[in-house]
């Protein structure tokens, strides 16, 4: 499965879980939200978004449901499961540790 090259491994999962933790959404809305909240910094191609979503679904972290949209079309809405919530907490903690570690290193003064 292809992964966006500019994203650290596993971070896409974290982003998706976090976005879905706020409210259930369909794939298209997720892609918009990703761009919007990251200030267009994070570019996730549509081609890799859906496999990632399906993977999360297979893992049992998110669940999907076909529901009508505001303009009366059927779309697949994803929402976080209890298992996903735990996973999100775990991954955010991991991310916190990792990013602070990295920023500490980056901030080191050169001798």
């Amino acid at each position, binding site marked *: *499965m*292809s992964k966006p090259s500019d994203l650290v491994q596993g971070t896409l999962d974290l982003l998706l879980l976090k976005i879905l933790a706020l409210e259930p959404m*369909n*794939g*298209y809305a997720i*892609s918009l939200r990703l761009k919007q909240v990251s200030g267009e910094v994070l570019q996730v*191609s*549509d*081609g*890799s978004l*859906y*496999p990632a979503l*399906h*993977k999360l*679904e*297979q*893992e*049992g972290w998110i669940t999907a449901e076909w529901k009508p949209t505001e303009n009366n*079309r*059927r*779309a*697949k809405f994803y929402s976080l*499961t209890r*298992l996903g919530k735990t996973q999100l907490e775990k991954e955010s903690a991991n991310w916190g540790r990792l990013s602070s570690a990295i920023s500490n290193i980056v901030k080191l003064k050169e001798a």
Partner: protein
Amino acid sequence: MRAKHWFYTLPLRLRSLFRRDHVEHEPSEELQFHLDQKTRVYLAAGLSSEEARRKARREFGGLEQAKENCRDTRRVGFIETLLQDVRYGLRMLHKNPGFTAVAVLTLALGIGATTAVFSLVSAILLKPLPFPNPDSIVLPELVSPPGVNLGSEYFPWGQTQFRLLTRDSHPFQAVAAFQNDSFNLTGTDDPASLDGFRVSADFFPALGISPSLGRAFTTEEDQPGHEYEVVLSDRLWREHFGADRTILGRAVRLNGYAYTVVGVMPAGFLFPRAEEMPSSFNFPREAQLWVPLAIPEAPKGGPSELAVIGRLKSGLTIQQAQAAMELVTKHAEAKDPQWKGWFNTRIVPLTRQIVGDTQRPLQLMLGAVGIVLLIACSNVANLLLTRSLGRRREFTLRAALGAGRARLIRQFLTESLLVAISAGAVSILLANAGIYFVKTFGPSNLPRLREVTLDLPVLGFALFVSLATGILFGLAPAMGATRKNLVDSLKEGSQRTGVSPTSPRLRSTLLVSQVALALVLVVSAGLLTRTFFHLRGTNGGFNPDRVLTFQLPLSALKYVDQSHIVAFYQDALRRLRSVPGVLSAGIGETVPMGGEGESTGIRMPDHPAATQKELPFANYTIISPGYLDSVGTPILRGRDFLDSDTADSMPVALVNAAMEKKYWPGQGALGKQVGPASARYPLLAIVGVVPDIKHISLREETVPEMYVAYTQKPWPSMLNLRVALRTKTDPASMTASVREAIRSIDPDLPLANVATLITLTDDSMSQPRFSMLLLGSFGLLALLLASIGMYGVISYSVTQRTQEIGIRMALGAEGRNVFGMVMGQGARLVGLGIALGLVAALGVTHLLASFLYGVQATDPFTFAVVSLLLVGTALLACYVPARRATRVDPMVALRHE
């Protein structure tokens, strides 16, 4: 966490597996929605509809790839691939029905035979005995004093010894003595003679089985005067008493006494069966009823006839029990020096006693069937290899399209496992037939034969063998077929010569080993066949033609002393001799092949024994005048017993040739004196010498034996003698008139164990016959499989060499040259196989030594005949393809690609 995880994901996986259409289409719809949304945005921004759609598509990237990636995340990869391989494999097998049939059948024969043999092993060796905690049930057996030959390693217990044991502190939770007896059941419609056991009170507790109806004996009932209680076997209860539950407390007449029925044992409890106890006890096939043994408080001595069984106190090991028994021995010897050397026991676990001698025949069977299975596997491996060569282009193409080697091997293995599993299914039928065969022809002394079934462990074993063989025969061709360098293969594939140099070598190796293995098996079968026919031709000291034998179990109540018994036999002999068709009649304690007689210590004035240990032993057999005539044993020297040898005339004896040779070599036994060891009994004058008569098996070593006239016998028990009648016509047809004659003397007396001497002799050979039939059929199977393999290899090579043969013929080779060339190729392989097989057989057949009789393990005749047989069969298998090679049309062959 893990379990919870599965709780969520399992339904999704299952949905993926079973709702494939859903999985395939769902992503399309979802992605379509995404595209449509984007398109709407661009439309709203003012782009044309065509442009908006294109832009949306472009931004999305590879749509189909994304769909495929989505599907990939949802597929249950392993199972899907497996299903795909299975579907493909089934299609391939279906397309080649010939190959499939041969491969499945070949393997099924191998697996079926193996499964049948394993069902035996499972029933005999692996299943625990049907008693609670069977490992603590043991037989304390009395061991012969060193240097004394009693004919068997163990000898029976005496009543005094058993009392000494029970009064001492012994290692048993429960210990019991028992001996067999026959019981005449009267007072029902048909008097019957039943095999039963007199058992002491702890017999059932020692085994840990209680009656299913009523109760076992109490200690009070196990005392002289109170012993008229009986426990029935389930079968006896059903057959003779109509499974009547009110039988408890009722009296039945056994040997003329009224016995009260106190219990009925559960179905299947028939302990002890003959095959479960040392053969020297000569026990009946199975027990039908049990009565108390009632050993008196102070036994008076008398013959030693008891077997002893005990359940060890819990937690006691065999070694500890053995040590405890040595103390018992020491106490007994201290009390009475007469026990010195005669009270040594060895604790033998019941399981080991029962399994005992059967391990060797089972090993033989396992070895033989293993060879058959190996041949079958290598045969199928060869078939697969042949086919894989034909499919090389397919594999090359798959490899070129990106299939990894592991993936190719996996697909190959899936196909061979499919073959193996189908074969496993077919083999269940064959195994069932095999089990029927074993049950029908299996020797009666094979313990627990009745318990042999196709049960779950056996089916599991069949499955295991199928899978193992599938991998075994599938792996080599799979490795071989996929090892190829892609480029070479593509180049090769376009040419017709395309046999890579490694494959024929592998195929030839497989073939040569098949021939070698088949040779080993057929040689073994040949040796056993010669043994069997040698045994049949062996002179057992009697002539079994047209002799009827049966037992007359006299009631001790009616025939209270010696004179009554003798009078009865005299009367019986007179009447039997006058039955039309009877040529001669005689009575004996045993009949040939009817079991072992009694053995006793003897004294001979000209061979005085210095010590008790040197006491000579001999079989001591009571017979009547006319007995030797009836079983067809001639008198070598001297005379037979006469009617004039009576209790008042001079006591006389006959001895067998073995005894004469041992004690009076060169001078002859006639006129010498011999008698039982105890001086209480008179010495007997030897008046005749007879050939050695064999008792149990034609292959037994003969031991010294002396014969005593029944009219002169000072021994107490003569209630159960056997009758032998030589008849003019078919002896079996005489049974009715003989029964009539006996009934006219004693209407309550049944005829027991009616059998012709031929039947007894045949029964005694059931073990060698079974070994012969078994190895014979396995050998035949091996031969068949090896010739199929031979045919396959040669005929494939002819196909491969069609072009070459065509060229040769175009250049002037004649049909017979080509024929010779193909046959030569076959002959080389067969020759190599036979040479290897002969070496292997020389190394293996000595393992058979204990099964052989009258033939050496390296019998050159057998080896030569079998080699020729194999050459003949193999050449026959080559003949067809060789003939085909001569009919190759050069023009067609050359144009062929």
